[in-house]
């Protein structure tokens, strides 16, 4: 009995143990560079990117869905925001708010395709991924848009003490995500739908409405990534980001079959992927090798999830 308890304690914290081991390995391998203050701030900046986007993705995967469009949403929103400020001379705050609204609307569109039309989430969001990447190119003409309000970089560059603002925004977003998941009835609905959609509907949940909400939130959080940006807007900023985000979420213990997962696990997943990326860059690992490593990490994370599901079923 005691043994069992100890076991489950290790199990539920396994992800953090993996993180600590990872940090130790990189610290030794990099000769200490990895754990210097400036590098940690670096990592914090980098992870705020997919950290913020991973919150919406957590909700989506909790209901056994997927959102492949968030990379494109991030790109588009950056381009639109820059376009409005530079080419239309719009006030920065108005532009930011409008851009985030656009991101949310794209999420609603995803929701409509998945919930109302019934297109599988994988295909629906794959389509919007391509659509909005294309739109971003059309608006920007493929060129970076630069030269806008000097205040814009504020989120991306400024810090409070040693802590970058974008990291604080990420922490805030995680807090909000955790609150939604644990304290509001929506959170309960997410788990119910992910566990069994039919039974959830028969328990009085309007499953379709919740799906709209979830994809809208996914768009919204992707839009909020704007707040961690600095400098110019290019048509490539979000490219491939959905991959890192999905890896973080699944690595963090959110089951791709839906219904299982916690926000704290996702935080760990984000930190692991952030450190991994940063560590590999420090060690001069080529970008292509990085791709290989990350792909393997995703496959392993999903593999562990599926094996534990099989065991549970027995």
């Amino acid at each position, binding site marked *: 009995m005691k043994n069992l308890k100890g076991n489950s304690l290790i199990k539920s914290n396994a992800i953090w143990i993996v993180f600590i081991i990872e940090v130790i390995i990189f610290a030794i391998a990099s000769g200490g560079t990895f754990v210097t203050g400036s590098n940690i701030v670096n990592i914090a900046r980098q992870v705020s990117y997919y950290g913020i986007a991973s919150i919406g993705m957590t909700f989506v995967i909790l209901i056994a869905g997927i959102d492949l469009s968030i990379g494109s949403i991030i790109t588009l929103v950056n381009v639109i925001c820059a376009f409005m400020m530079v080419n239309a001379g719009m006030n920065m705050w108005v532009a930011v708010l409008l851009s985030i609204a656009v991101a949310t609307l794209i999420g609603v569109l995803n929701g409509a395709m998945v919930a109302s039309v019934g297109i599988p989430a994988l295909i629906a969001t794959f389509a919007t991924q391509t659509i909005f990447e294309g739109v971003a190119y059309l608006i920007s003409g493929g060129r970076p848009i630069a030269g806008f309000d000097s205040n814009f970089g504020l989120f991306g560059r400024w810090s409070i003490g040693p802590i970058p603002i974008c990291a604080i925004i990420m922490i805030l977003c995680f807090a909000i995500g955790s609150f939604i998941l644990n304290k509001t009835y929506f959170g309960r609905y997410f788990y119910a739908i992910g566990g069994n959609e039919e*039974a959830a509907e028969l328990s009085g949940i309007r499953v379709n409405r919740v799906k709209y909400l979830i994809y809208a939130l996914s768009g919204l959080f992707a839009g909020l990534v704007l707040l961690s940006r600095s400098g110019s807007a290019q048509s490539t900023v979000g490219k491939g980001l959905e991959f890192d985000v999905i890896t973080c979420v699944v690595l963090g213990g959110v089951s791709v079959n839906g219904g299982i997962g916690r926000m704290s696990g996702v935080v760990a997943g984000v930190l692991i992927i952030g450190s991994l990326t940063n560590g590999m860059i420090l060690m001069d690992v080529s970008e292509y090798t990085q791709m290989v490593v990350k792909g393997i990490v995703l496959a392993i994370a999903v593999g562990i999830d599926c094996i534990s599901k099989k065991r549970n079923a027995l």
Partner: protein
Amino acid sequence: MSEDYVLELEHIRKEYPGVVALKDVTLQLRRGEVLGLIGENGAGKSTLIKCCSGAVIPTSGKIRINGKEFDRMTPQLAAENGIAIIYQEFNNVGELSAAENLFLGRPIRKGMVIDRKAMEEEAAKAFAQLQIKIDPRELVKNLSVGYQQMIEIAKAIQQNAQVLIMDEPSAPLTTNEVENMFKVVELLREKGVSIIYISHRLEEIFRLSDRIEVIRDGEYVDTLITPKATVDQLIRMMVGREMTQQFPPRKPCIDTSKVVLELQNVYGNGDEDMSLKIHAGEVLGLGGLVGAGRTELAEVIFGAKAKTAGKIFLNGQEINPKSPREAIDLGIALVPEDRKRHGALLTNSIKNNINMPIYERISKASVIDGKTEMATAEKYREEIQIKCPGVHQLVKNLSGGNQQKVILGKWLAADSQLIIFDEPTRGIDVGAKFEIYKLINDLVESGRSVLMISSEMEELIGMSDRIIVLAEHQMTGELQKEEFNADTIMTLASAIVDQADNSGDKEAS
């Protein structure tokens, strides 16, 4: 000695965790005979034939085919030994032609290429042998259900089946198609094929079979020579146990002056012309065979499926629930038949399950009032005695009876006035059944109403105040308490309603 028999099942027993599906069934099939296999819903017929096909592995017992003994079957072994099963659901591929379906998985080839012509010729021969007129080139999706079934049979014969097991073969067919199917069965018998024919329709059994085997509650009852058997005798054997099970006593609580639910000529979800009334404090039983349209009716009342015509009144007010949510808010609840798929949220806690329908009510600005949530869960855990270490326990770790209680707790929390139970005690052991019956009594004694679908005759008779019987998506009778009688209910349930034969099925060219 055993040479007379193509297929012998000896003392087959099948246990599932907590449930014994087959206690001890023996079956002997002679060469070239049609053996009718009958029994109530849940008697174990399906499990028994699955033991023959290899889909189910018996816990104990022997299977002998042509004298060769097996402990268990596998689908491959069954096929090699000439056993074929025609299920109610067909394995045809609609987009392929009749010929291609006949040779599905083992096409005739000329080198690497499929020899379509040879297949079509062979198929034409196979169909001619069974005296059925199907164009081998016709796509199966364009064929009527009857012809699709014929393809299944032809496929089995093509693969040298010696034993053909047919599970309710007439259920999906129109009257004409049934006649054609009978002809094929008789033809096969002449050719020396042995057939196990499972049906609820006794007149079919009488017409086709040489002998009839009856099973009940997973046990072998008797095998009769068909010409010597009578309908009454068979029904008695199928149902006829003593009413040994105890039902908890109920105080008189029906208020006939208060009609809680009324249906007026409701159509929808396959059901036709449903009219009924349920009073306050009443348990209305809904009897009938599996597939008679009872669950379908429940789904319409609960807003899960749309009604296409007719009116539904709740407490005198016309209602038209378009989703379970709307029905729940009106005070209607459904405890579904398939608890694990539709009822309980297995990966969620007891607390979350019980609060699920009322979360929006107990939240302010979307934030759940945690105290109320906890108190509600504890209240119903106490009230209906859900046995668990705590309300944070996941529902999947509970026994069937306790899962059922959690579902009921959910509906009590939602303050439901009309509770529809679809097979309330399916897969629940005897002790827990009694508790569920007591809870149903509590419901009606507190003024609520219950609509109870049950395929268990004892349960239906023991718990209902009134019984309505459905057959083939239509109402075939209503019985008052003093008229309750298992034979009568069985007769109503197997009544073939006049179909007028205007079903408009496409005939094959």
